[in-house]
């Protein structure tokens, strides 16, 4: 079922200057379950929807801690993500070893970008089949980056990738102005809300299928400058999901009041 002659490998341009193999790799990202990332002035949050292959199997990990100041959320081929996250972990450790400093987020992101680009220019390699959201904090504050199989990386205020992620993006775009001035906990709630928008009718966010990662600047008066990356899974999620429920209730009330007036 070849669509055309120009999509057999990543080293052939189409007459329009496109590289189909790379575009197909981007499709692999859309097959993965959705992950959402967002930042405000103090924190960067990752939220992911985990899938299990069957009722009795465990859920696929969606959020990985890279270092105490950085984590990633993945959509697409998990094994490709493991290669990239291992590389990121090594680079992070090496920076701490050599310079005694946490690796600046933009630098590690361009490094994986460069790696991915190499795979799109040489025969016998294939593009990575995974998209990443990288959340981290450094001297310049909290950051969120999107990484694509093409090697394209963007610094974002908010982002969602994976299956049905358009719904989440729409939510984020609609609430973009609010996000900047949220508190840490409100930011998480917005992330969960965005994630929820992508769910089909019969699905819900549960402690089993949800994953949340948070990293940011430490609160005033706390020890150290940064709040280390923390992964919320299982029972740890209960308060976060409850906060989501509460905010939804609040919202419906607000809306109904608006209707009244």
């Amino acid at each position, binding site marked *: 079922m070849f669509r055309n*002659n*120009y999509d057999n490998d*990543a*080293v*052939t*341009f*189409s*007459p*329009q*200057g*496109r*590289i189909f193999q790379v575009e197909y790799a981007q499709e692999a990202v859309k097959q993965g379950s959705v992950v959402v990332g967002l930042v405000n002035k103090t924190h960067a949050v990752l939220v992911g929807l985990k899938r299990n292959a069957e009722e009795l199997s465990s859920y696929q990990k969606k959020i990985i801690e890279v270092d105490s100041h950085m984590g990633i959320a993945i959509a697409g081929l998990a094994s490709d993500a493991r290669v990239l996250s291992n590389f990121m972990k090594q680079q992070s450790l090496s920076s701490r070893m050599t310079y005694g400093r946490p690796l600046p987020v933009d630098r590690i992101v*361009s490094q994986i*970008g*460069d790696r*991915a*680009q*190499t795979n*799109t*220019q*040489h*025969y*016998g390699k294939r593009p990575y089949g995974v998209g990443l959201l990288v959340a981290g904090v450094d001297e310049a504050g909290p950051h*969120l980056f999107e990484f694509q199989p*093409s*090697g*394209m990386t*963007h*610094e*974002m*205020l*908010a*982002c969602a990738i994976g299956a049905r992620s358009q719904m989440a*993006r729409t939510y*984020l*775009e609609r609430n*973009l102005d609010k996000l900047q001035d949220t508190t840490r906990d409100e930011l998480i709630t917005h992330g969960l809300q965005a994630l929820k928008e992508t769910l089909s009718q019969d699905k819900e966010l549960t402690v089993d299928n949800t994953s949340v990662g948070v990293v940011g600047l430490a609160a005033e008066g706390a020890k150290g400058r940064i709040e280390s990356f923390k992964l919320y899974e299982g029972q740890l999620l209960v308060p976060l999901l409850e906060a989501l429920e509460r905010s939804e209730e609040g919202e419906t009330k607000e809306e109904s009041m608006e209707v009244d007036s």
Partner: protein
Amino acid sequence: MTSIGTGYDLSNSVFSPDGRNFQVEYAVKAVENGGTAIGIRCKDGVVLAVEKIITSKLLKPGANKRTATVDRHIGIVSAGLVPDGRHFVSRARDEASSWRSVYKGPIPVSALSNRLGSYVQAYTLYSSVRPFGVTAIVGGWDSEAELAVDGQVGSGPESGSGGKIQGAKTGGPGLYMIEPSGLYWGYYGAATGKGRQAAKAELEKLDLNSGNLSLLEGVKEAARIIYVAHEDSKDKDFELEMTWISSLDGPTKGRHEEVPKGLLEEAERAAKRALEGEDEEEDATKGDANDSERMEE
């Protein structure tokens, strides 16, 4: 392109019967879809500017730089596939650093462009790789001062044997553009990307080869040209990104830096005014004020 589909365009490094390498031509197509990038070689510096199309509201404003610093005195801006542009810059940085380790001094802009031209050309030679999907503009300032001897111990003689040649003139601005084929030329004004035709037309009006345009005027002109080049894709928002390299006694002291925010905004305002003026001349009845306001976002 008549030979499309005859099979000669399926692999890099293959000539068609009429002597063309189609894969390189297709790579150029990728460039022609990218945001407009320009460079202007002024008498006391070089300006680089790029039109950055905003593809999503969720992008962080002002981040995601498209101009890169290669060495202290050289910058690169490119149009085409962004990841290929990053690869290109990374190679440029390696070349600049290896030059330093061999010659103990900064690489001249011409030498860097030459090496990058060779590197890009090598990606047209083999079927195992594809050509670069970028056209890159390399701008820099070769120091006009005498280079410090590496690891200089003491000051050396003031004159005489091993001393200085009085009044020798060296250095100056350099601007080169490297295409996917590996071809490169030196330029007074270079433009590539989607709006290159409009940009070139504007650059030609500047009479750059007389060498009278100052760097500050160049900044204003570069902003205006990017705004002119954007006219054809008005429906999309964009950010203007500009960097510059001045002479040693100029504002950047021979270094490649971002144009300061204040000056950038001033140049953008002037560019918008110039556009509005043109519109009025062309069609007094049609007010385009709304469009230029939208660009501010």
